[in-house]
């Protein structure tokens, strides 16, 4: 019975974000946009913080046919800058500010951070494999053409060929940014979600 009471206590943890003005100053959103974001955030997470389970559940709702849990896990780690297992509204909105309103440099750095699973400053092939497999998992089983066994590996090879300039087997942040800036597709697709808010 002690455990149950502990659990009840944990669920009543509440977190209130900083004031609207501070957030407006720190991010690239207007007050109205922050209001809309917060209302949506609070609706799904009334306690004010998202834990990884809720995060995965929310993200999985957008991909009903596949398994979005791994990618959501990596996303969560990227959002959770303090690495304490919960994402507050401030973290959430900072990341969104970078992704939707940031400069290309900032976006690329955020993406690099997402790919760098162990946060050591280098992307190696294993990390990339995990990311690519997580993305493929989101498609689910029923796809056309049917996913081949070595498709993720090939995808990773292509990626490394493009990104790894000095062919040392890892991709550093500078290599990453440089290679992405050379690729028009990527540049264009980074601007894709400008008008999301």
């Amino acid at each position, binding site marked *: 019975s002690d455990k149950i009471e502990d659990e009840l206590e944990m669920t009543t943890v509440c977190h209130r974000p900083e004031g609207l003005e501070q957030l407006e100053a720190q991010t690239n959103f207007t007050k109205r946009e922050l209001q809309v974001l917060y209302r949506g955030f609070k609706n799904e997470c009334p306690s004010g913080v998202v834990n990884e389970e809720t995060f995965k559940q929310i*993200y999985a709702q957008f991909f009903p*046919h596949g398994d979005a849990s791994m990618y959501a896990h990596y996303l969560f780690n990227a959002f959770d800058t303090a690495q304490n297992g919960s994402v507050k509204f401030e973290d959430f909105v900072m990341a969104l500010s970078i992704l939707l309103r940031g400069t290309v440099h900032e976006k690329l750095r955020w993406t690099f951070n997402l790919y760098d699973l162990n946060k050591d400053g280098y992307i190696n092939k294993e990390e990339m494999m995990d990311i690519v497999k997580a993305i493929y998992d989101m*498609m689910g089983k029923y*796809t056309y*053409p049917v996913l081949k066994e070595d498709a993720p590996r090939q*995808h990773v090879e292509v990626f490394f060929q493009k990104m790894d300039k000095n062919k040392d087997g890892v991709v550093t942040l500078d290599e990453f940014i440089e290679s992405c800036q050379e690729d028009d597709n990527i540049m*264009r697709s980074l601007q*894709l979600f400008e008008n999301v808010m």
Partner: protein
Amino acid sequence: MAAGVAAWLPFARAAAIGWMPVANCPMPLAPAEKNKRQDELIILNVSGRRFQTWRTTLERYPDTLLGSTEKEFFFNEDTKEYFFDRDPEVFRCILNFYRTGKLHYPRYECISAYDEELAFYGILPEIIGDCCYEEYKDRKRENAERLMDDNDSENNQEGSMPSLSFRQTMWRAFENPHTSTLALVFYYVTGFFIAVSVITNVVETVPCGTVPGNKELPCGERYAVAFFCLDTACVMIFTVEYLLRLFAAPSRYRFIRSVMSIIDVVAIMPYYIGLVMTNNEDVSGAFVTLRVFRVFRIFKFSRHSQGLRILGYTLKSCASELGFLLFSLTMAIIIFATVMFYAEKGSSASKFTSIPASFWYTIVTMTTLGYGDMVPKTIAGKIFGSICSLSGVLVIALPVPVIVSNFSRIYHQNQRADKRRAQKKARLARIRVAKTGSSNAYLHSKRNGLLNEALELTGSTDDEQHMTKGTSLIESQHHHLLHCLEKTTGLSYLVDDPLLSVRTSTIKNHEFIDEQLFEQNCMESSMQNYPSSRSPSLSSHHGLATSCCSRRHKKSTHLPNCSVPATRLRSMQELSTIHIQCSEQPSLTTSRSSLNMKSDDGLRPNCKSAQITTAIISIPTPPALTPEGESRPPPGSPGRAVPSAANVVKVSAL
């Protein structure tokens, strides 16, 4: 997708930036947000009670009254609010549905009134949340039964059944005696004969009168012939009934295994066995025993009595409790019998000769019968005997209410378990439908989306009404997200319905660097190994069959290049257009460039399995096109694909 989560769509789309460096192909364009207006509060006046909510809250469910433009019919210009002349209490639940995504059913509400309100606001009852769904279904079923009873009593004399086979009508007559008078007659006749048979068996053994010789004869032997005739008649009726049931049963194997049929068989078997066996002295003893089984005929009454059936069923389901009662009784009997035996061992002429002999005393005492044929004589025996009778009351009285309450509990539990099982099946079906619905919606919109974009390219406003009914902004954004995922991985969603499987995207106005480089990129990223014989201007991805939809959209398709000025076209490199050609016009293919011929190769004569291949083409000059007319390919331009007649839908995919 739950409405509340729609608010997180911006986040999911932003997170998609994480796919971009991994993707090898360009992404489709994001849907434009037409009519983007600031969120505003709208006032809903329901019979005088004012509710206020954000407009976007209501727009989460565009296929309901409040979420669609239907609510404009209720807009009051003077007061600038939406007025509904409906029940405000139920409206509270409905508005909460928009807010939280869960529809609740208040217990105090009348089920038909609630249903009416749901129908008015265009909300399907199936989305009632799990917390209230069981209650809702129960009430609905009760209501339906009540309505059905009313209807039945109204048109009781209708009797116009849909044409059932003779066998089915017979089975119905057997199972429900109230369906026709013949069935009712049959029901009563069999009941009467069961009663006659049972009474016969009983009266057979009554001694009636003496025969000279001072011997009391039972009636059965005195009027042997009469009883034999009666018995024969009853058995004949029962046999005929059994055979008729066997004939009419929908599943004979299951019928044979059912309890009632076994009772029937056991009831009539002794007679036939008796017929077969002659008056053989050896087996007559066994024959007499067989007659005992005739008493089973009384169980045939259970077909006539609902209560008996329920009792039998609950006994069966209460078997463990009964077993426990028996076990504890056995324990107590053994204990007390042992004690009494040793206590009475000393006394002379004691009836307690052995422990099993003491069982009888213990049972009689514990059930407070007390026949008195076995009585303890020693003091110790009397003490233990009184303890035995006291504990007997306890041991027997305690489990009985438990069993009784178990009866009702198990009975209700069984009902609830069936309900829950049906609800679970329905819930799973709902989830499945929602899932496939969302992916079907996505594929639908892909197919429609390309047409919309094609129409937008032409820039002609009068084609606006040709555009299919727009999906909501949230849906289009969600679909765009899924589309980006497809692009990133180079795969596409597959759904069983071939009509809906199409990979599409249109790329317009992109200044691509170099056709060759782009080809190379796509060649590298292609997941299949394509025959190398294809020309380098082809980067083929196998698409899915979709030709039938192209046929349907024949009339409304405007080809992108129609009214676009030449200069624009020249700078526009239309990349990788797919031609879906129906087999109706095979002749067109021969005059085309290799691209089209390749695409025709993939075509089957049957439209349904047409394959789509892609190609990179550049269109330096605008071809002379009309939507319905044929077109001639401009001579001498290699690798140019010319969208042709109306039954070719230009779908570009990469």
